[in-house]
């Protein structure tokens, strides 16, 4: 009997190795860890409160997932992390064992592996090589949150949007191409920079008229990266300074 695609251990290990947490691990350890993982799929659009998932630790094998916070009174959401294949969640609950008030939304169909948090805590204790991947990943997540907090406090919407786009330049794609956010809705882009759909829409239309970006068929492309860089470099302080000078 031929093997079925998703039960192929080697292919799952190859996918796991895309994660910075699992990439450095020995094959034998990965095989052992696989015994504790459960394979899951989440359909595109699935939303779940983190209370549903806080007892498990997830590795994304394919697809994108948005982790955010919602204001229950207004329904407004801010995206804390846009997670991609190789990313894991929820690191915060894993570390402090407390519920994390966040909402998860599958942007694409997702393929995931999940393991009980107690088991993953055991890996942290027992396997220094797992820790060596885990700590830099934790640092990366903290840096993401620091960038978000800094952007929200220090920059205006135009600058935040320019910085968001530039942070998602595709290092492996053609020059100036984007990844992860290239096909997101204006609403989703707004949630990543603490604003709303209409503001993003207006800004992108303005940049399109300037020839800075091209938005067509639901995809975003950069036309003039230098112009976008200039917009990203402006801070709220310097803009206010300009206004004062003008005044």
């Amino acid at each position, binding site marked *: *009997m*031929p093997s*079925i*695609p*998703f*039960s192929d251990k080697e292919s799952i290990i190859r996918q796991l190795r895309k994660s910075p947490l699992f990439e450095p691990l020995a094959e034998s350890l990965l095989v052992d860890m696989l015994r504790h993982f*459960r*394979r*899951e*799929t*989440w*359909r*595109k659009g*699935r939303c*779940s409160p983190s209370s*549903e998932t806080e007892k498990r630790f997830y590795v994304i094998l394919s697809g994108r997932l948005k982790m955010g916070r919602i204001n229950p009174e207004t329904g407004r959401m801010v995206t804390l992390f846009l997670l991609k294949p190789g990313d894991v969640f929820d690191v915060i609950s894993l570390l402090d064992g407390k519920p994390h008030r966040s909402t998860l939304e599958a942007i694409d*169909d997702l*393929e995931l592996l999940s393991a009980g948090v107690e088991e993953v805590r055991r890996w942290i204790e027992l396997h220094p090589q797992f820790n060596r991947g885990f700590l830099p990943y934790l640092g990366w997540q903290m840096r993401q949150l620091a960038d978000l907090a800094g952007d929200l406090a220090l920059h205006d919407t135009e600058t935040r949007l320019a910085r968001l786009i530039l942070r998602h330049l595709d290092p492996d794609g053609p020059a100036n191409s984007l990844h992860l956010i290239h096909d997101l809705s204006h609403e989703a882009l707004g949630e990543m920079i603490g604003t709303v759909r209409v503001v993003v829409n207006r800004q992108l239309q303005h940049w399109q008229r300037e020839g800075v970006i091209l938005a067509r068929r639901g995809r975003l492309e950069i036309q003039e990266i230098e112009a976008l860089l200039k917009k990203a470099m402006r801070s709220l302080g310097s803009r206010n300074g300009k206004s004062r000078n003008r005044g």
Partner: protein
Amino acid sequence: MGNNSCVAIYRTRERLKEAVRALRRSGSDMAKVSIVGRPADGGDTVSGLYVVEERIRLLESEVPFWKSLAEELGGMAWLVKPSSRVVVGALVSLLERLAEGGKGGSETSLTEEMLYTVGATRKSARCYEKAIDSGRYLTVVHGSLPEVERAHQVLLETSPEDIAIHLA
């Protein structure tokens, strides 16, 4: 109909039957359990088993196996044409609704639609179809998240070739 499911794949009929027994022993709601597979020879040329509105026709030698499963899971079975896949149990009523609604047209099959409706992604559903067509059997338990998680725990102990949870 819950739109989440746990799907386990088995290579042999013995393992499949053991999985059904394990679910029953664990107190699972058998009204949410289904089996999908193919007759051993893939044929539907000789009549022998008529379970739901005379829709299922199997070789004489195949009758006892599918009939016993159908009896175990509420007496419902359906041979899906033209793929010759057999569905037994709770998902038969879903299949009927999908067929009446004109689903399972040129681009998707009825079994793909059925698995999609209980939470599988299109990609997973197509993989399951390939698994069925290569002689494997699926045990599908649909329901709420706690129900499918519980089914996963039970079925994990029955040595499936693959097992996954699908959430929609």
